[in-house]
C-alpha cells in the first residue's frame, strides 16, 4: 500500500465514522452548562443508560468488595488471610523519606528504552530526527552515552548482541563493536527475544488474532511456523507462552474483545508443555514467574487471574481476583488493586497478605528481585512518590510527574527506567521524561 492509498483509506475511514447529527451532544452540553449556571449541583446530565451503568458499577463494586478485603488464596493455601506484611513488600510504618534519586535520560515525548538482559546496557530512543529514522542511543547502566545508532528499533539477542531495524533491513550489532552486519530477516515490531539468542517473530496477520502465527529465529536457523501469538518467554529462555484466539472478530472488527486460550511450548523443540484451556484469556498480561514453573495469565474483565503450574499441570487461583499482577523473587504473586492495596498470594500455599495504601499498580523484574509500586496516572500530586523495593529493601523515590507507562526494569533488576508525564487538562505544555532510577 503506497502513501496515497493509505492516506485515502484513512480519510475514507474517518469520513465513514463522522456523526451525521450532534443534536444530542449539543443538548447535553446545553443542559450541563445551564445546571452549572443555576447552581443546581447537577454538574452532568446523565443519560438513563449511564445511570444504569453506574448502578451496575456500584453492584459490581459491592460484589467485589469481599474479594478486595478478604483476599482469595491459592487452592492449597490457608483460607484465613494473614495480617502480617508480605516479606516482599514494605511495612506501612517503615516508609522511608522520598528521595529525588533519578537521572533524566530523555525529556521529550515518544521516548522509550530497552535493557540488555544483564542490565549493563540500555538502548534509548527519542523522537526521530531526520524524518527517516529514530534517534537511538546506547547507554551504559549509569546512563552515560556509549554510542548513537541509526535505526528504528532495537531487539537484544543476549547480553551483548542486538538486532537493529532500519526501514526494512535488519542489522546485527554488538556493544563491543561499532560494526553492523546486515542479516536477511525482517524484525517486526514487537519481536520477542528470550535474551539467549532466540527471537519470536510474528509472521501471520497481526490484525487478526485468529490468523496470527510466528517463527522462532536464531542466527543458526529458523523454526517451523507456529500458530498463535507469542506473549512471554520463561526467564531461562526454554519456554514460550503462546495465546490462541477463539473469539470471532466483531462484525466490523471493532468493539470486540480478543479472548482465547494459552499454551506453553518448550524451546527449541516447540513441544506443548501445558495449557490453560478456558477460552476467556486475553493476551496480556502473561508472565512467567522467576523460576519458570508458573505462568500467570489474565481473563477478560472481572474473571480474574489464573496460574498454570507446569510441574503439576494444575491451575491455581486466586479466583475472582483482578488487578495489576507481578511476581516477586519467591515466585509469589503480587496483585495491585484499584483501592491502592497490594496483596501477595504465595504459590506455596501460605496465607495471603495485604498491604494497603502502597499503589494501584505493581511491576517487577524478570527475576523478581526488584519491585516497583506506584499509582497509575493521577496528576493530583506533583511530584509523586514511587516505592522501589530491591532485594526486599524498600525505598521511596520522588518523581516529577504522573506515571502512565509500566516501568522498564532490567531482567536482573539492576536498573529501572520510569516514564513520567506532566499533563494538565487545560491547555498547557506536556512533558514526558524518561528517568533512570538509582
Amino acid at each position: 500500500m503506497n502513501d496515497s492509498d493509505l492516506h485515502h483509506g484513512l480519510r475514507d475511514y474517518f469520513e465513514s465514522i463522522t456523526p451525521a447529527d450532534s443534536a444530542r451532544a449539543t443538548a447535553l452540553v446545553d443542559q450541563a452548562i445551564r445546571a452549572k449556571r443555576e447552581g443546581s449541583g447537577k454538574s452532568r446530565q446523565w443519560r438513563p443508560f449511564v445511570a444504569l451503568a453506574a448502578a451496575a458499577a456500584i453492584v459490581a463494586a459491592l460484589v467485589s468488595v469481599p474479594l478486595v478485603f478478604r483476599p482469595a488464596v491459592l487452592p492449597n493455601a490457608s483460607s484465613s488471610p494473614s495480617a502480617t506484611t508480605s516479606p516482599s513488600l514494605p511495612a506501612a510504618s517503615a516508609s522511608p523519606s522520598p528521595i529525588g534519586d533519578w537521572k533524566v535520560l530523555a525529556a521529550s515525548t515518544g521516548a522509550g528504552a530497552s535493557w540488555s538482559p544483564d542490565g549493563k546496557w540500555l538502548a534509548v530512543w527519542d523522537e526521530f530526527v531526520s524524518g527517516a529514522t529514530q534517534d537511538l542511543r546506547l547507554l551504559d547502566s549509569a546512563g552515560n552515552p556509549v554510542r548513537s545508532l541509526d535505526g528504528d528499533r532495537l531487539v537484544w539477542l543476549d547480553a551483548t548482541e542486538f538486532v537493529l531495524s532500519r526501514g526494512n533491513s535488519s542489522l546485527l550489532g554488538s556493544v563491543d563493536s561499532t560494526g553492523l552486519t546486515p542479516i536477511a530477516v525482517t524484525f517486526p515490531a514487537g519481536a520477542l527475544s528470550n535474551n539467549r539468542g532466540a527471537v519470536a517473530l510474528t509472521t501471520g496477520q497481526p490484525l487478526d488474532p485468529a490468523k496470527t502465527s510466528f517463527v522462532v529465529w536464531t542466527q543458526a536457523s529458523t523454526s517451523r511456523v507456529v500458530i498463535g501469538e507469542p506473549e512471554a518467554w520463561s526467564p531461562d529462555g526454554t519456554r514460550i507462552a503462546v495465546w490462541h484466539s477463539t473469539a470471532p472478530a466483531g462484525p466490523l472488527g471493532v468493539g470486540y474483545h480478543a479472548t482465547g486460550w494459552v499454551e506453553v511450548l518448550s524451546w527449541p523443540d516447540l513441544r506443548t508443555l501445558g495449557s490453560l484451556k478456558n477460552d476467556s484469556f486475553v493476551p496480556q498480561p502473561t508472565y512467567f514467574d522467576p523460576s519458570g514453573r508458573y505462568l500467570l495469565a489474565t481473563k477478560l474483565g472481572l474473571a480474574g487471574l489464573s496460574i498454570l503450574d507446569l510441574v503439576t499441570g494444575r491451575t491455581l487461583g486466586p479466583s475472582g481476583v483482578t488487578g495489576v499482577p507481578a511476581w516477586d523473587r519467591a515466585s509469589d504473586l503480587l496483585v495491585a488493586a484499584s483501592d491502592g492495596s497490594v496483596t501477595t498470594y504465595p504459590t506455596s500455599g501460605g496465607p495471603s497478605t495485604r498491604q494497603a495504601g502502597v499503589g494501584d499498580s505493581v511491576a517487577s523484574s524478570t527475576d523478581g528481585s526488584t519491585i516497583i509500586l506506584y499509582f497509575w496516572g493521577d496528576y493530583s500530586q506533583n511530584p509523586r512518590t514511587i516505592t522501589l523495593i530491591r532485594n526486599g529493601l524498600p525505598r521511596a523515590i520522588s518523581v516529577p510527574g504522573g506515571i502512565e507507562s509500566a516501568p522498564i526494569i532490567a531482567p536482573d533488576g539492576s536498573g529501572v527506567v520510569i516514564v513520567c508525564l506532566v499533563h494538565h487538562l487545560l491547555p498547557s505544555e506536556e512533558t514526558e521524561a524518561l528517568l533512570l532510577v538509582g
Partner: protein
Amino acid sequence: MALSDDDIAELLVTRTPEAHRLATWLLRDPVAAEDAVQEAALAAWNGRKKLRHADNPGGWFTTIVVNVCRDELRRRARRQTLPEPTESMVDGSPDRLALRDEMARAIARLTADEQLVIGLRFGRDLTVPQIAAHTGLAEGTVKSRLHHSLEYLRSALAAERRVEEPGR
C-alpha cells in the same frame, strides 16, 4: 474584549457540533464522544476566567476537547478495550468496508497518543503546526508520531493483504 458568562455559554453550545465531530474522530465512538464533549464543556466553564480573555476562545475549547479525548484514549488503552462500531461504517462497497475494518483494527493497536495524532491529521484534517498547537506537543514530536503511526499502519495493512491474496 472580555467575554461574559452568556458569551461563553453560547460559545460552548454553538461549538458543540464541531467538538462532537472532533471527539468522534479521536475516540471513534460517537457516544463516548458525547461524554467527552460534555466533560470538556464543563472543564471550559469551570476555567472560564482564562477563557474570558483568550485570544482564540474556540481554539481553547478545541484544545480542551483534545485533552479530554487523550485522557479517554489512555484509559481505554489501559483497559484494553476497543470502541463499538458506528452505524455509518456499514455504508459502502465490500472492499471499502473491508479496508475500513482493517483500518479500525490497525488504528486501535496504535498507542493512545498516536491515535490522537492520526485522528487530528486525517479526521479533523489539521496540519502539523495546528496539531502541535492543540496538543501542546513540539512539531517534531507530532511528525515523529505521524511517521511511526503511518509506518505501522502501512506494514500492518500490507501484512493483511499478503495473507489474503492467494498465491503469495
